[in-house]
């Protein structure tokens, strides 16, 4: 079976490479390939070369590692170990199941009826995942700053061990989750033991960290890393972190003896993880069978998993067609999102916020939460419309059905935008609220009234930016359908990455252009009112800017109507 797995993996990789090279004949892939390659070059190689030459120019003294980086490198294993412990615990809390248990249609058809034990199937899946992990490890190695080629190779190998261990462990978690609801007492004990052990371990480490930092915040990064290292070397904490530190240590170890020794130990932990997962043979049997059934039922290429849940929103028989499209997308969200998982994520966010507030100003924790909430708000507004594709980009698959409906084309376009726009806006508002709540720690120098006005204006502008981007994305889907991956498709490869970059860059460029009239008008309003109402002038300015962008969006949907009418279903089918 191992030989067969190697054969499948290598043949797949070879043929995939051939296909990707062959499709470069098409301009959209060639253009995407050029942009993807340029991105890779400028983010990895050029930056690296730039750093090296800068270091050479600046001389040896300047090339020396800054103290904070040196302190982080020393504390690296401890930091990495703690991070891994946190991730290990989060695996149990957050939703999702391991990709190792997701068999392809061909694997189900060929390997499941074959006389192969299920354990070997799992080994096969581990082997199949190696190319992706190796690529990821190589990227990490290449991104490692200011080191030589051989060190990059060592970092790549060490990273690969971490990634394989994490992947196999996550598969084990997915299998163990299935046993949590078991009716057998022994199975329950076995399933709950790792959770209890992990919860205890996390609690002990969190208490140790809290003791180290509560009331005496670190004066800088050097002290911060030093204290973390001290915490990690405390009795009990050291024992708890031991397996996690072992896994990450090769990344930071010196060549040769320390590196090789730590690599052997890390490989030992990986081996133990594999053995633990293989012990879940019965659970794997069930999980694999369930995955196969689900995939067979869902049909080829379908990955999304829907569950019938009452949405408590019954579509009224009369109303605007836009409402019907919004309802349709809302039902999809309700059926796709794991409610328990969502509750866990919200609880986690709420807990972090509550902890940061209760720890007080001195801890710095509130600043971190506030900073990430601000970043999250910006990401939700700027990246959300690219990621959430519950609109025309997804419904191009159903174009045959959609086009036979007696709905005005502009109404179809508007209807497709409604739900994703509303959802992203609500997420952005939630994160913005957290960011505002923590703003006393992030931007303490700014007056409360200014922070409140800025947050309110951001909340007002957010839907305008979101809907404008969604309009652009849907416009591209209608005007250039071959550039848009359908449904849950996620094309891979350098060319696909380049295509996504072109789309993202183009969208932001168009967004910037579309925002100009609103920004100018808003700017005038702000300038006129700020003498009277101060920072609160941001709010009417945002209202004016949003109103102008909203009008633009409405006009754009009307203009896209004819494009929807003209779109040729064959252009979409070819893209599949």
């Amino acid at each position: 079976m191992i030989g067969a797995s190697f054969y499948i993996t290598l043949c797949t990789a070879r043929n995939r490479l051939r296909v990707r090279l062959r499709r470069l004949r098409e301009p959209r892939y060639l253009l995407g390939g050029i942009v993807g390659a340029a991105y890779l070059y400028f983010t990895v190689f050029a930056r690296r070369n730039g750093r090296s030459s800068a270091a050479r120019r600046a001389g040896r003294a300047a090339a020396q590692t800054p103290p904070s980086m040196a302190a982080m490198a020393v504390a690296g294993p401890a930091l990495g170990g703690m991070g891994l412990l946190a991730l290990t615990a989060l695996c149990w809390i957050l939703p999702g199941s391991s990709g190792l248990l997701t068999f392809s249609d061909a694997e189900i058809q060929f390997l499941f009826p074959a006389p192969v034990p299920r354990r070997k199937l799992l080994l096969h899946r581990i082997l199949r995942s190696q190319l992706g992990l190796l690529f990821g490890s190589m990227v990490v190695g290449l991104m490692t700053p200011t080191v030589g080629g051989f060190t990059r190779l060592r970092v790549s190998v060490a990273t690969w061990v971490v990634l394989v261990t994490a992947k196999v462990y996550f598969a084990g978690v997915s299998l163990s989750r299935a046993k949590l609801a078991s009716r057998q007492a022994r199975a329950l004990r076995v399933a709950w033991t790792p959770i209890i052990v992990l919860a205890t371990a996390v609690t002990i480490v969190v208490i140790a960290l809290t003791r180290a930092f509560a009331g005496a915040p670190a004066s800088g990064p050097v002290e911060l890393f030093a204290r973390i290292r001290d915490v990690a070397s405390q009795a009990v904490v050291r024992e708890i972190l031991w397996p996690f530190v072992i896994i990450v240590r090769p990344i930071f170890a010196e060549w040769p003896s320390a590196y090789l020794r730590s690599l052997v130990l890390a490989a030992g932990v990986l081996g133990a993880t594999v053995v633990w997962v293989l012990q879940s043979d019965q659970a794997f049997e069930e999980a694999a069978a369930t995955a196969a059934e689900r995939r067979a039922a869902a049909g080829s290429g379908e990955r999304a998993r829907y569950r019938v849940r009452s949405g408590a929103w019954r579509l009224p028989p009369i109303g605007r067609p836009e409402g019907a499209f919004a309802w349709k997308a809302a039902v999809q969200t309700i059926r796709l999102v794991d409610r328990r998982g969502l509750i866990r994520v919200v609880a986690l966010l709420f807990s972090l916020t509550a902890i940061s507030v209760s720890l007080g100003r001195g801890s710095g924790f509130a600043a971190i939460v506030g900073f990430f909430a601000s970043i999250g708000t910006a990401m939700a507004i700027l990246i959300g419309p690219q990621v959430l594709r519950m609109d025309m980009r997804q419904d191009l698959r159903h174009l045959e059905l959609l086009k036979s409906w007696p709905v005005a084309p502009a109404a179809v376009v508007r209807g497709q935008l409604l739900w994703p726009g509303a959802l992203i806006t609500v997420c952005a508002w939630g994160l913005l609220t957290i960011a505002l709540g923590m703003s006393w720690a992030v931007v303490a120098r700014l007056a409360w009234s200014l922070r409140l006005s800025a947050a309110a204006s951001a909340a007002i502008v957010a839907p305008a930016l979101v809907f404008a981007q969604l309009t652009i994305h849907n416009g591209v889907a209608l005007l250039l359908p071959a550039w848009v991956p359908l449904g849950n498709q996620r094309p891979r490869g350098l060319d696909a990455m380049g295509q996504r970059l072109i789309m993202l860059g183009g969208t932001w460029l168009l967004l910037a252009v579309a925002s100009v009239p609103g920004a100018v008008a808003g700017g005038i309003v702000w300038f006129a009112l700020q003498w009277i109402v101060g920072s609160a002038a941001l709010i009417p300015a945002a209202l004016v800017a949003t109103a102008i962008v909203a009008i633009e969006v409405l006009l754009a949907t009307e203009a896209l109507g004819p494009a929807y009418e003209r779109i040729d279903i064959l252009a979409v089918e070819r893209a599949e």
Partner: protein
Amino acid sequence: MTISVEHFSRTYGDLTAVDDLSFEVASGEIVGLIGPNGAGKTTTLRSLAGILRPSAGRLRIDGHEIVGDALEAKRCLAFMPDEPHLFEYLTVEEHLRLVARLYTVTDFEARVRPLLEELQLNGKEQSLPGELSRGMRQKVIIACGLMRSATTLLFDEPLTGLDPLGIRRMRTTIAARARDGAAILLSSHLLHLVEEVCSRVIIMDRGRKIADGTFAELAAHAELAPAGSSLEQIFLRVTGHDGAA
């Protein structure tokens, strides 16, 4: 005439899928559209449904141009495609509700029960498409089409995936809709179904209409086939494949 096709052509790049096609389907008539693969049947049906734009010619549903007066034309027709592409996250009942909303069907509750009964979909109201067989999904598509009182019904291979009982019921359903006054255009490779259900047959080959008439007219046509020929024999003869058979 409920369906009117005048000099309709459709090209894909250099390929002419349908070339100068003209025909009409009257209210209460069931017309079979048959032809070998690539004859242009699905292109014709998709164009009539407003999915594809005609390259030339006029397509009218109940007097409404499918290009110029698309919304009114689409309100009058129901298209049942050969591939049941359903929304994988909507249940059977929700598909019907969605269609009812889009076509402004106000008496949904009164219509839905008999329809589900008629198409043997009872008990499947809360099922997602992923939980249904191919035949069941086909029935859902047909149910969506029959939800409202469309004056024009377009069926593209309506019996694909149906079991024998389903096929029999579907034949009855189609005939009943025609009796109620609907104009029905049905494309199928199942010639015995066409022979049994349709009142008229159009044979297409390589984008062109090569025969049009009632079964009796086609059978009686001495040039086409010997007397007493079946539709299959006529079909093979007019498409030039009788020797191959």
